[in-house]
């Protein structure tokens, strides 16, 4: 209450795939503007659109639906959570027993649609203090796997569709994600990535996961000083070979059916 910034209008981004639902939130935000001044920074129909908007808009608060095409609200919150001074996130949901239970457990703020003015005002009052929930919590309640990886580049979020990543390689503090065109640094652990995408990526080495559909073939190769030969995976579209560790070979052989 002492801080004057508390009274500056809050820049709100509304994310919902249904036009009337966005309209409704806009109406109710207008209704509570006397006590909780806000300004609509933008509206988006899904997570990807919302992240694109965030690139050139300053947003204090995101009100997002959960179930949306292309990218759902939970995944949006995960990407937003990577931003250093990113906006607060409040979920809106019509009815989703599973998500609501997860919210209660994690003390995540959410609004039930249709949203009531009084409840919205309450949420706005504490909005500046709401950070997106910890990634760990969001990961557990995600209705689906992420559709994109995100890279925080100089304060903006760069999205890479998961389907475009050929392999993931651990390097010291980071994981390098390789697509056809370039490499990205992900601030995540290989173990977590392996757990999140078991159908998509296959572990071939202590430090490497390969996308199953990026495997062109396997071959014997001799590398290093010892002159010992071992198996390598030939990556589709890249003139690159990734070593398979002796320990992983039986599992890789079985998974790839070679």
């Amino acid at each position, binding site marked *: 209450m002492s801080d004057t910034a508390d009274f500056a209008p809050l820049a709100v981004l509304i994310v919902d795939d249904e036009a009337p*639902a966005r*309209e409704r939130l806009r*109406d109710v935000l207008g209704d509570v503007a006397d006590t909780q001044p806000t300004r609509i920074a933008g509206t988006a129909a899904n997570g990807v659109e919302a992240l694109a908007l965030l690139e050139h808009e300053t947003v204090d608060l995101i009100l997002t639906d959960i179930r949306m*095409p292309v990218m759902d609200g939970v995944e949006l919150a995960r990407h937003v959570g990577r931003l250093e001074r990113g906006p607060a996130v409040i979920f809106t949901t019509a009815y989703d027993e599973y998500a609501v239970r997860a919210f209660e457990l994690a003390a995540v703020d959410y609004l039930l649609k249709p949203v009531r003015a009084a409840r919205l005002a309450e949420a706005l009052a504490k909005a500046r203090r709401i950070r997106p929930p910890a990634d760990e919590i969001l990961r557990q309640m995600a209705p*689906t796997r992420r559709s994109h990886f995100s890279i925080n580049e100089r304060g903006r979020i760069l999205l890479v569709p998961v389907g475009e990543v050929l392999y993931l390689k651990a390097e010291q503090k980071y994981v390098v994600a390789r697509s056809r065109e370039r490499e990205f640094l992900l601030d995540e652990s290989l173990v977590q990535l392996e757990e999140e995408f078991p159908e998509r990526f296959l572990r071939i080495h202590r430090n490497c996961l390969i996308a199953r559909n990026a495997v062109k073939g396997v071959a014997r190769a001799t590398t290093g000083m010892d002159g010992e030969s071992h198996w390598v995976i030939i990556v589709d579209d890249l003139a690159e070979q990734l070593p398979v560790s002796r320990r992983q070979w039986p599992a890789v052989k079985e998974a790839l059916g070679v």
Partner: protein
Amino acid sequence: MSIKQNPRLAGWGQRPAQLPDFRNLGVVLRTLLLVNAFAIAAVFVRNTDLSLLVGEVLEMAVNVEFPLILNVASLFLMQTLLRRLPFGAGVATVLAVVATIALVSRSLLSPIETGGLLRPLLWSLTTAGCVLTYFHQRDSARAPALAEARLLALTARIRPHFLFNSLNGVLGVLRSNPRRAEEGLEELADLFRALMQDNRELVPLTDEIALCERYLNLERLRLGERLQVAWQRDPQAEAALVPPLMLQPLIENAVYHGIEPGAGPGTVSITIERRGPEVIIAIANPLLDAVSHHPGNRMALDNIRERLMLFYDLEATLDTERDADAYRVRIRLPFRSER
């Protein structure tokens, strides 16, 4: 919202007794099986010499199958008349038919042998009585199951996701387009009226189609251009009687799984056609996420399958299939109309 069902459910046991539907394949098959079982049992009881058994069975078959098939055929033809009679009169009519056929076929088949008409007459009447008793028992045993099915129909139908999203949609257009909001509330009211009415009688397919159109119009409020619908209707099929709320839940599933998860427009296609004695209904939606297999989907399908079974026994089927880009539900049921 609260839906109190139990007080009305209590009245379910008092459903008036009914004759079986003699045009139902299940009823016909059960009748044939039961009568033959009786006849074979009778041969075994009478038989004294095992070497004569085959001959006796054949003789029985000649004496029994002909009147049996005549009976089944006559009752099939008389079904419309029988359905209009009260239970007692219906039973009397059936027994009279059975007796007449027993006498006529006896005199046609073995005019010389004068073993008397009394024995075949008594045998026919006793067997018919047993078969009718069996169907009556079966019917009353199924009454609670029917009540339960109706309750299932109701609980499965109120998908909270749909109710709250629709209300939110109506609120969303309330200020900008009050006319559309009114329409939305009217559609919602119609849908809930249909959900809450007594759903144990078959309803004309036209009514179901009208209900689905209201439902789709309500969904269009939220989904806008994303929801495209391709109807292919057949006026010849629309007089058919179908279980209430058979079509709408399937279309709701198609919208939930085939349209809502997609960013762009998608088409739900609904094809209704009459093929001879049957009505074929097919609903298809785009296959968007092969991963998500919502338990709600199977619940709705099981529920409808169970109700088809209760209403039509073996004569109706419900199949699903998925190919590369579409998910299809296909229902096949016998064409029945009010007249």
